Structures are given as structure tokens and as C-alpha cells.
């Protein structure tokens, strides 16, 4: 559909008009460096033209309403209108289209994820002419990134504070998720940390319930952390979850964690973008590592046709400013196609995230010196997968073995030691130039000769895999180029 040249009188006549003709479809538009660009996957209702659908998305996520309004003429409406400038079919998905939409920088308040998202995902996902809509990726201009502080600590400074270099970090989530008393809970923390883990973690729904008040948990956990530090001579941490019903309550819990000397606090994604930014600022003021659990994301990130890709959430969270974020394991129990996960990890860790369609990354994204976020791999992983984890996830990652530590037949500390020995032996082999991915099982068996707990872990879980087809996979495949 071609945009129509209209006289002003014609354009602003009362009534309804296709969005494409209202100025929201501009196929000749060349985005400028300061534009925010969003890439949507659009599934129009039967009979709706994809260009009109894209223009409608641009309109409803910027200035438009369903009918013509004369008050547009009191504004510089042409610059405020989002512009759909490209629409192309999704490969192998007959009824779906990718739409590129550019937004002027002045549409967004600086330093506010809430304002950015209120436009981009505000109303438009319920728009009737669309059967489904998914936000696949965004290009955030450097000018806008510079209005955000980003991660308060970042990978480099986190490693310096913890004095841990050259290997992935190890963690475990305390299990069972619910029901342990503070005293019993701290026992798990102590055993896991003294056995060799760097971190333990509250689960997302551990807040302050009848079986364990938050203050009790914090006190027992810090006893455990300090005992484990003395037992090993290493810095240890436990993610104290400060998630609560109000900001006031969260600040009170964060302050108490600080008073007790914790190096890290934790929040859940469900507290909301503004609350996350507030706690990021608090963490920056107080030298605290901020761990984010992505609780709730699967309800809108997993399905390919509707919702928001997690790579966009990862991007927003790097801007909002968290130090850790759960980002997939590839080999564990939760959703995670290897190529899609690679795209998400690049988004969190690179100085410039390269465009890689085969990873689902549509735009090159320079990060303007915003700190790097440490991805966290958690959920159904165990020591026997160490070569795969190092291969797929790299070095700057927290590997979290909850069941794989606490469920060890010889106890929690033995489980932790098994994981640490597996990790160190794999990193050493990698650095020595060995083909650790293919020799991984041999490397682990050799390491188990001097580490009984690793041998028992391999006997117990060596064959456990979660081999299901992923739902969220890239639409493009890499093809070799002819040179």
C-alpha cells in the first residue's frame, strides 16, 4: 500500500481513515541514529492488509487514536508519529509479518523503562485487527541509553569485589522453595557455601511467610555466609530476596541486608520496572550486587506469535540496571534453544551486540559503556553437563545447581564440591587447549578419581537430560556464504 499525498483539509476531515494513510506507513523513511526502532511480529486478522496492520501498530504505539482528531494540528505531529517503514513476511509462516517501526527520541522520557514500555507495549497488544503481536527486538539509540545508569556493579567489578576470576561462578537455590524455618534454611546455605559454591539464592517466592520471617532468614543466612568465608578463605554471598508488597518494605529489607554485610540482594521481575530502577539506584549507592529473578516472564516471552521476546526484556533490564539476570541454560529443564540463548547472552554481556538473525538478534546494539550483566543459568542442570555448560554459556555466567547440589547422595557440601571440581577441571582443560566439549565426559571421570563426591554425582545424574523441542526459536538460519 502506497502512502497517499493528501491536502491538510482532506487529511484532518472528521471520521476514520486507514492508519497507513494517516502518516504511520512511510516506506521511504530512513531511520536516524537517534530513533528507537522496534521490530514486531504481526499476525493480522484474516483480510487485514499487513501494511495497514503495521501502520496501526505504529499509530497505536505512538500518537494515534481510532479516529482523526483536529488537535493533531496543534502539534509537530509528523515528528511524533511512529513510522512503520518496512514490512516483510516471516520465513515459513504464511500469516505472519515482521514490521520495522521507528520512533522519534523525543517520544520518550529519559531514564524511564516505564515510559518507554508504556508506548511500545502500552495499548497495542490488545488491538482487535491483530490476531497476535510479538515484540521481537529493539534498537535503543546511544542517546537514549546515556539517560540510564545501567547495572550498578557489572561483571568486571563484581569479579573484582568477589576476587573470583577466570571461571564461571557457582550458585544454588535453597530447596525446598517453601517451608524451611530460618534455622534450617541457613543450614543449607552454610553447607553449600563451605562445600565450594560462591553463592546461594533465595527462591523467587521466598519473601516473608508464616514459616520464615524475612529478618530471621537474613540473620541465619549471614551467619552461614560468614562461617563459610572463614572455612574457605573466599568471599561468599547469598542473594537475599528483598521482594515485598511495597517499596518502603523493600527498602527496609535492603537496608537490613546491607547492615548485615551482605554483598548481594535480590529482587523479582514481578515487582515492576520502576521498582527495579529504584532498587538499582539504591544498590549503586550502597555497593550492592543486584540479582534479578525473572519470575513471571514465561507467561509472555515463551510463545513465538504473541508477547515479548526475552531478548527485549534482557535489553530493558540492562538499561534498568541489574547485575544478574536468569537467562537460560540450554541444557536444563526450562525453555532454551541454544541459538536464542546465545542472542540473549550477547545482549547482556557484549560491548556491542552484533546483529545475528540466526540468534534472533535483528539489530546491532552498541551499549554505550553500560556495564555488562552477568547471566544466570538455573534449572535442572548438574555436574555431568559441565562441558556443555561451559561451551554454550562461556565464562561470565553464574551456574546454579539447586537440586544438583542439595540432592547429592552424600550431602549438600559434597554436592557443592562435586560441582566446583567439575567446573575447575573443565576450565583447566579448556585453558590447556583440550577439546573439552567432546572430551568432557572423560575429563569429568578423570577429575572424579581424586574427588569421590564428583564420582557419586556422575553416578546419580550422569544420564539426566531434558531433551524437548523449544518453542522460542529463531526464524532465520545461517547459510554458508559463497566466497
Amino acid at each position, binding site marked *: 500500500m502506497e502512502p497517499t499525498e493528501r491536502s491538510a483539509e482532506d487529511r484532518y476531515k472528521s471520521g476514520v481513515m486507514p492508519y497507513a494513510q494517516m502518516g504511520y506507513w512511510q516506506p521511504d523513511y530512513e531511520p536516524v541514529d537517534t530513533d528507537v526502532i522496534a521490530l514486531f511480529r504481526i499476525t493480522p486478522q484474516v483480510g487485514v492488509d499487513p501494511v495497514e496492520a503495521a501502520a496501526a501498530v505504529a499509530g497505536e504505539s505512538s500518537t494515534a487514536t481510532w479516529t482523526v482528531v483536529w488537535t493533531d494540528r496543534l502539534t509537530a505531529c509528523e515528528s511524533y508519529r511512529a513510522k512503520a517503514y518496512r514490512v516483510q513476511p516471516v520465513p515459513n509462516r504464511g500469516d505472519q509479518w515482521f514490521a520495522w517501526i521507528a520512533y522519534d527520541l523525543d517520544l520518550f522520557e529519559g531514564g524511564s523503562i516505564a515510559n518507554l514500555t508504556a508506548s511500545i507495549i502500552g495499548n497495542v497488544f490488545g488491538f482487535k485487527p491483530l490476531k497476535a503481536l510479538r515484540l521481537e527486538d529493539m534498537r535503543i539509540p546511544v542517546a537514549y541509553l546515556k539517560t540510564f545508569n545501567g547495572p550498578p556493579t557489572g561483571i568486571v567489578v563484581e569479579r573484582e569485589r568477589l576476587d573470583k576470576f577466570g571461571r564461571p561462578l557457582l550458585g544454588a537455590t535453597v530447596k525446598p522453595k517453601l517451608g524451611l524455618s530460618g534455622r534450617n534454611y541457613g543450614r543449607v546455605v552454610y553447607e553449600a557455601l563451605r562445600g565450594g559454591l560462591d553463592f546461594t539464592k533465595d527462591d523467587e517466592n521466598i519473601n516473608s511467610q508464616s514459616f520464615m520471617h524475612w529478618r530471621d532468614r537474613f540473620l541465619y543466612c549471614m551467619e552461614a555466609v560468614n562461617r563459610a568465608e572463614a572455612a*574457605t578463605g573466599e568471599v561468599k554471598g547469598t542473594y537475599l530476596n528483598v521482594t515485598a508488597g511495597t517499596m518502603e518494605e523493600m527498602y527496609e529489607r535492603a537496608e537490613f541486608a546491607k547492615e548485615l554485610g551482605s554483598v548481594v540482594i535480590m529482587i523479582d521481575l514481578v515487582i515492576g520496572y520502576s521498582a527495579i530502577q529504584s532498587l538499582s539506584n539504591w544498590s549503586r549507592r550502597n555497593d550492592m550486587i543486584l540479582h534479578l529473578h525473572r519470575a513471571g516472564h514465561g507467561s509472555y516471552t515463551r510463545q513465538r506469535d504473541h508477547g515479548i521476546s526475552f531478548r527485549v526484556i534482557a535489553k530493558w533490564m540492562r538499561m534498568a540496571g541489574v547485575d544478574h539476570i536468569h537467562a537460560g541454560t540450554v541444557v536444563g529443564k526450562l525453555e532454551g534453544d541454544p541459538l536464542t540463548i546465545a542472542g540473549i547472552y550477547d545482549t547482556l554481556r557484549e560491548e556491542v551486540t552484533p546483529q545475528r538473525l540466526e540468534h534472533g538478534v535483528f539489530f546491532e546494539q552498541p551499549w554505550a559503556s553500560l556495564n555488562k550483566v552477568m547471566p544466570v543459568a538455573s534449572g535442572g542442570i548438574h555436574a555431568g553437563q559441565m562441558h556443555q555448560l561451559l561451551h554454550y554459556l562461556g565464562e561470565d555466567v553464574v551456574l546454579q545447581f539447586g537440586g544438583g547440589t542439595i540432592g547429592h547422595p552424600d550431602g549438600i557440601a559434597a554436592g557443592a564440591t562435586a560441582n566446583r571440581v567439575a567446573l*575447575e577441571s573443565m576450565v583447566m582443560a579448556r585453558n590447556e587447549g583440550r577439546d573439552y566439549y567432546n572430551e568432557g565426559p572423560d575429563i569429568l571421570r578423570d577429575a572424579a578419581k581424586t574427588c569421590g563426591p564428583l564420582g557419586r554425582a556422575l553416578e546419580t545424574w550422569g544420564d539426566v537430560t531434558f531433551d524437548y523441542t523449544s518453542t522460542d526459536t529463531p526464524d532465520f538460519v545461517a547459510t554458508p556464504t559463497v566466497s
Partner: protein
Amino acid sequence: MRLTQGAFSYLPDLTDEQIEAQVNYCIDHGWAVNIEYTDDPHPRNTYWEMWGMPSFDLASARPVLDALQACRESFTNHYIRISASDSEKGWESLRLSFIAQRPAVEPGFQVVRSNGPGRQINYTTRSYATDQPPEQRYRDV
């Protein structure tokens, strides 16, 4: 106790051959290699003593291994660590750190608690070794 700082402390102590392989890994990445020693291994003692300057632009691991040997001979019963500094923009920090010598006996650390209000406890980690003046901290056994 066994001090478990560094990337490989849960494995058997590294042989010189294994140390050489790790130094080569650092050289292949263009990192400068540091040798440091201490008799105060407190987890927050960041600044171990430098054994000379970091080695930049290494063509082989040999100079590092020679320097390590000299450091060991001077400090037979100290902790010695090897670390690698990456000058790449966005990192500009250490990329690897591991222990290359440890004392024959590692006395470890004490947790000192002081009670505060509301069941709050303030913790101090105290190294047993640093009870003694530096020259008496580690004895050969």
C-alpha cells in the same frame, strides 16, 4: 583448612607443567602475567605483594616460570598466586587468578561475633596467621 581462592584450588596443587599451560593460555590472549605473594590470605586482602613488575608482551612462559621459582625460593612458606591482566576496553581487569604455592600448614580463619540489638551480629573474619608478626606467621613443618 585449605584456602580455596583462585580458579583451581579444588583440584590437586598444580604441577609446574600445568602452571606453564595456564601461563601460555594467558600469553595467547595477550594478557600481562603477575606473580604475587602474601602471608595474609584474608579473603578481602586484595593487595598481595608484587614479585617484580607484571610481565607484558611475553613470547614464552619461561620468564614467568623462572620468576615463580625465584619467588618460591625467597618465600618458601607463603601463598603465591599467578594472575593475568587484560587491557582490553571494557575489561581492564584480571581475567584469571590461581594459587601456585601454599604454606605447608594453613591455619585458617576465625569468625569473631559481636552481638548487636535485635539479634543482629556483626562479623569479623580474622586470620590466625596474622596473630604473629610477619616473619613468624608460617613455620616449616
